[in-house]
């Protein structure tokens, strides 16, 4: 636990936790990043599932770039939020489920985009890739659900 205690007690983490604006601003970044990653993964998954079939898969290139930016915003804002409560959130089951879902959802989305872009732009996709689209969509859904649950289940600070 040494590192987490140190992290939580750094001057910056203490500032983030106590300043009246810092934490809400972090939450704002985290919400915008969430909408970008999850929203675009869902749009690309919908396309793989055939809604709408006419949408060219070539557009996945820019869509996945925006999703990656959203992911980066949330990796940073998420780490800073984590730093304010590291020792309490590390053994929170909901937090661990959220992190696992993000890991799975991220890798599966990356695999889906890579595979889809290798096919014809107006292709109808094989059933296996549709399963992949459902898996990544569900993983991000679970990440949102368990992210929200952390607020209800984390140990109080004192």
């Amino acid at each position: 636990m040494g590192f987490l205690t140190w992290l939580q007690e750094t001057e910056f983490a203490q500032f983030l936790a106590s300043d009246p604006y810092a934490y809400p601003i972090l939450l704002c970044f985290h919400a915008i990043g969430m909408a970008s990653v999850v929203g675009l993964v869902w749009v690309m998954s919908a396309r793989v599932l055939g809604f709408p079939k006419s949408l060219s898969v070539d557009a996945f290139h820019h869509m996945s770039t925006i999703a990656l930016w959203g992911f980066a915003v949330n990796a940073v804002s998420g780490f800073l939020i984590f730093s304010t409560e590291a020792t309490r959130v590390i053994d929170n089951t909901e937090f661990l489920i959220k992190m696992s879902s993000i890991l799975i959802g991220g890798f599966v989305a990356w695999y889906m985009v890579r595979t889809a872009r290798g096919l014809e732009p107006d292709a109808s996709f094989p059933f296996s890739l549709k399963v992949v689209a459902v898996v990544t969509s569900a993983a991000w859904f679970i990440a949102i659900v368990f992210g929200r649950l952390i607020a209800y289940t984390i140990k109080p600070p004192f």
Partner: protein
Amino acid sequence: MDPLLRWIRETPLGAAMRETPGLFPACEMAHFIGLSMLMGVMIVVDLRILGVFRQASYSSVLKLLPFAVAGFVINLLSGICFIACNPFLYFTNPLFFAKLGLVLLGGLNALGFTIGEHKQIAGLPSEAAAPLPARIMAVASLGVWTLVLLAGRLLPTFAPAGGG
């Protein structure tokens, strides 16, 4: 205003929101999921009108809009549930009124686009630039929905003390 707010709070919906374990968090989850659907689609549609994703035809991108409408409806319904739970928390908060105004603005902008621009844009060839009014509406849409998201996220944090 107080009698009306008290009435809202005593509706069966308000009581259910306060007394059913897990219902309030479930509405919050729905609200986050709805906002991701709305924002995800609007990012794609608005940026396409502004000239990004040129590989995709205008008409194909516009076919995503029903997902945005679905996200909006999810958030309208879950939002009504939050208000019914404790109307005092919202109707005493300036950020709530700002958010309502912005939602109205976003809705009117979307209505204006649907009536005035949608048909013309859907018929444009991929390489053509969208007309200026549609571009202005796309910028407004991205800006307004982002502000709605921020107002909503900050609303509980900056609620006046002792609301309800």
